[in-house]
């Protein structure tokens, strides 16, 4: 479809629909080949937009900067960062939690929305699962490099060794190792399983060396219904596994803090609070990536304004949950009459890092409130603004939790004001480069929308699927609802 047609669709895009009707999730031409063409076309047809090359080189530069900073760190030691006693964890762990949190939205879209039978997930799940994988890669960098003696990081894994020692399983830091590894691997498997049919589509449309590569990667998938049967069971099982997994991963990350005795860290609400925050930040990042991507790659008829609308609703909902957690923490801090706890929260609100706290409150609690207005939810500029605000705000949330709790704890003589070094900052910027670089490569070389799943949704929208004649369905205005099964 021409860009003009696609752009015109935004005006045509209906997000107001009567209760009882279900929104159209694919706009424009309603045939399977059009979908294949639209998505695979991005991968197959040169020329790549010039913007892609510009972005590629910028992100490549940032990635090189990341590698340089890591090398500098390894050569000189952790002292090049701003961490010190009492703020022993700072940007390293903030960034780790930030990136892992972003990954969770991908799994939510893929797995949890699948379990809840939401058909609108099909145009965004592939890109967001890919985003999860890239976010996990960026996240894993930090625990690896922050240990000091990076060449010994394999000690975290249980293997028979000459010291006859085993890792200390009672530590949440080790639970992290297992949780994140499981999460990375499961996300990869889930993503790859979803990719198989689309790789087959690419294979069947390609020639030469590309046919070979896609052919090998597709494992010979040919759409056999006997295979689809098992595939669907496996997909459901993986989704059902990924759902508690995503809860557990960020809960385990929150355990890193909550198992301590530090006021501001040791509080029982951390697990669901962190999970809600992760989904919140992740959805913001999905919007940050997909709003431009749908524009530049001509996919607005597949990633429609209704999708953006839904994602913004989830952003608002999870932001509210995060706000609820803030409120609970503040109330219980007062209620506990524990003066250390009370001080910690007063210090957050009015101490030296108050600027960070109020930035966080504005970005996380205040800015998403514009999404109460449906017009704002469908406004791409508002979406980008809030998405970027939340990206920043969620980083600051981890900053507030980690740094403000540490910099003033029980012993006033140890109090200090932490400042990051240029190595901290450049490393973090570099991970953004790596993340975007991988995402750009993904957009260029792999189908960024789940073609087979979209076709299934299209099929349901075109044809009501009744197992048998239904005597109860009558009337000309009967809700022509799509069930939205996968």
């Amino acid at each position, binding site marked *: 479809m021409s860009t003009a047609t696609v752009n015109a669709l935004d005006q045509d895009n209906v997000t107001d629909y009567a209760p009882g009707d279900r929104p159209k999730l694919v706009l424009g031409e309603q*045939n*399977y*080949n059009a979908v*294949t063409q639209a998505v695979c076309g991005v991968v197959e047809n040169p020329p790549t937009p010039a913007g892609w090359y510009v972005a590629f080189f910028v992100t490549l530069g940032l990635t090189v900067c990341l590698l340089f900073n890591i090398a500098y760190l390894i*050569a000189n030691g952790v002292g090049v960062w701003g961490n010190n006693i009492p703020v022993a964890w700072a940007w390293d762990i903030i960034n780790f939690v930030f990136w892992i949190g972003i990954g969770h939205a991908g799994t939510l879209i893929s797995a949890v929305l699948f379990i809840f039978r939401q058909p609108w997930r099909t145009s965004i799940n592939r890109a967001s699962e890919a985003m999860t994988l890239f976010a996990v890669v960026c996240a894993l960098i930090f625990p690896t490099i922050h240990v000091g003696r990076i*060449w010994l990081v394999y000690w975290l894994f*249980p*293997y*028979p060794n*000459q010291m*006859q020692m*085993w890792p*200390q*399983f*009672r530590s949440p830091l*080790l*639970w992290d190792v*297992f*949780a994140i*590894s*499981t999460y990375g*691997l*499961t996300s990869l*498997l889930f993503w790859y*399983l979803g990719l198989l*049919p689309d790789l087959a*589509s690419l*294979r*069947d*449309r390609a020639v030469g060396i590309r046919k070979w590569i896609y*052919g*090998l990667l597709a*494992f*010979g*998938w*040919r*759409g*056999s*219904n*006997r*295979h*689809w*049967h*098992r*595939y669907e*069971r*496996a997909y459901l*099982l993986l989704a059902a*596994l990924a759902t508690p*997994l995503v809860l*557990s991963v960020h809960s*385990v990350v929150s*355990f890193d803090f909550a198992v301590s005795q530090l006021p501001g860290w040791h509080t029982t609400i951390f697990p669901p609070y962190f999970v809600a925050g992760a989904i919140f930040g992740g959805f913001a990042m999905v919007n940050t990536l997909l709003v431009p991507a749908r524009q530049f790659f001509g996919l607005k008829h597949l990633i429609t304004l209704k999708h953006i609308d839904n994602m913004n609703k989830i952003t608002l909902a999870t932001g509210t949950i995060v706000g609820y957690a803030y409120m609970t923490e503040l109330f219980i801090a007062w209620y506990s009459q524990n003066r250390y706890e009370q001080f910690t929260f007063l210090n957050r609100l009015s101490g030296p890092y108050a600027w960070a706290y109020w930035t966080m409150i504005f970005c996380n609690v205040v800015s998403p409130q514009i999404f109460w207005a449906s017009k704002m939810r469908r406004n791409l500029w508002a979406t980008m603004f809030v998405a970027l605000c939340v990206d920043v705000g969620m980083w600051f949330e981890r900053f507030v939790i980690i740094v403000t709790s540490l910099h003033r704890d029980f012993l006033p003589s140890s109090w200090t004001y932490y400042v990051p070094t240029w190595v901290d900052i450049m490393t973090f910027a570099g991970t953004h480069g790596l993340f975007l670089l991988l995402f750009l490569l993904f957009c260029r070389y792999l189908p960024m929308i789940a073609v*087979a*799943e979209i*076709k*299934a949704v299209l*099929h349901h929208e075109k*044809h009501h*699927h009744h197992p048998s004649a239904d005597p109860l369905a009558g009337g000309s205005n009967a809700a022509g609802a799509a069930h939205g099964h996968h």
Partner: protein
Amino acid sequence: MGMDELKPGAAEPEAMKTSGVLAEYATPEGLIAAAEKVAAAGYRKWDCFTPFPVHGLDDAMKIQATRLPWFVLACGLTGLALALGFQTWANGFDYPWNISGKPLISLPASIPVTFEGTVLFSAIGSFVGVLLFCQLPQLYHPTMRSAKFARATDDRFFLFIEARDRLFEAGKATSLLSGTHPESLETLEEPVHGSPQPGYFKPFTLMLFCLLSIPPLMLFNSRSQPSGDLPRIHIVQDMDKQPKFGPQMGVGENLFADGRAMRPPAVGVVARGEVKADSQLYEGKVDGKLAKGLPASLPASAALMERGRTMYNIQCSVCHGVAGDGKGTVAVRAQQLAEGTFIPPLAFHDDRLRNIEDGHLFEVITKGIRTMPGYGHKIVPEDRWAIILYVRALQLSQSASIDVVPADERAKIKPQ
């Protein structure tokens, strides 16, 4: 993927056999209707091919529910058992390790890794299970010889009856399918001889897998053995190798013949300030026998007594009690906790200890006795004698008669 492209220069016509009949449909409904017919006709080796899973097709084809969920369950239970068992064994039995007082086998702390292990194994089981059950990767299939079949992953729906099916007869199958109004119908052929996949493929993959697993296994093996005499690989040198002589370092022949970097002191050499001539002061012994009385250099005085009281209260009263009655706070608490291994500290108020040599007390303070540790490194000899003076005073205080008390002090003592 047409395998013809793989065979270099296959020019000569080979003997071909029918591999099956392929029907193409434009809509899923058409395919479902056809599938119902084919299933009803009793065929077993046949399949449908769709770009997306079509609901209702499983029922039409009478496909039995897959056993994959059971496989995944088995994998998950394995993961659970392994994770929980390993943690319990490693931290509870093999190398028990007290971490901040947590029990050696702490179930609450074992749950997260157990959960992750279950999910990990289940997820791997799901993915590997799909591949196994579908026998993927399978890079060749007779349908790939049809040019039209490329649309199976795009927008067309196919039905293929294999020639291998026991009911298959070319004419019958074709007429059955043409009754379902397909968009197109073709009979597919494949070579009679020769495997469709290059023969080297399977052994090559197997060998590749074996070769690839050698480095990690070697690494695993090497890490589980002691490194022996090999020097460690030391990447970041920092200031680890300094040009100086450290203790116990062999320094080669350049310096002294016995390999040392310094000469040992001659026999009988004593450092300045280390001469301990006064054996009574420093050892509590005179002529090798335990001494009685304070050393000459430390006459008894009020100041010494006061010093003794201060040091006694600091160092000794925690166990022996401020009154020397063995009821210090540590002793009392230990009795409360009924710690079986605790031997109560002595009270000083019996005749044996009242009459024992002062040198003995000195030795006990210095070197310890039974379960009491030695305090020689903590208390200088002068202070030890002060403590002994004070202990004697305590002993006197608990064994004195009223006559010893000065007359003007007697009034202060209330009757018990």
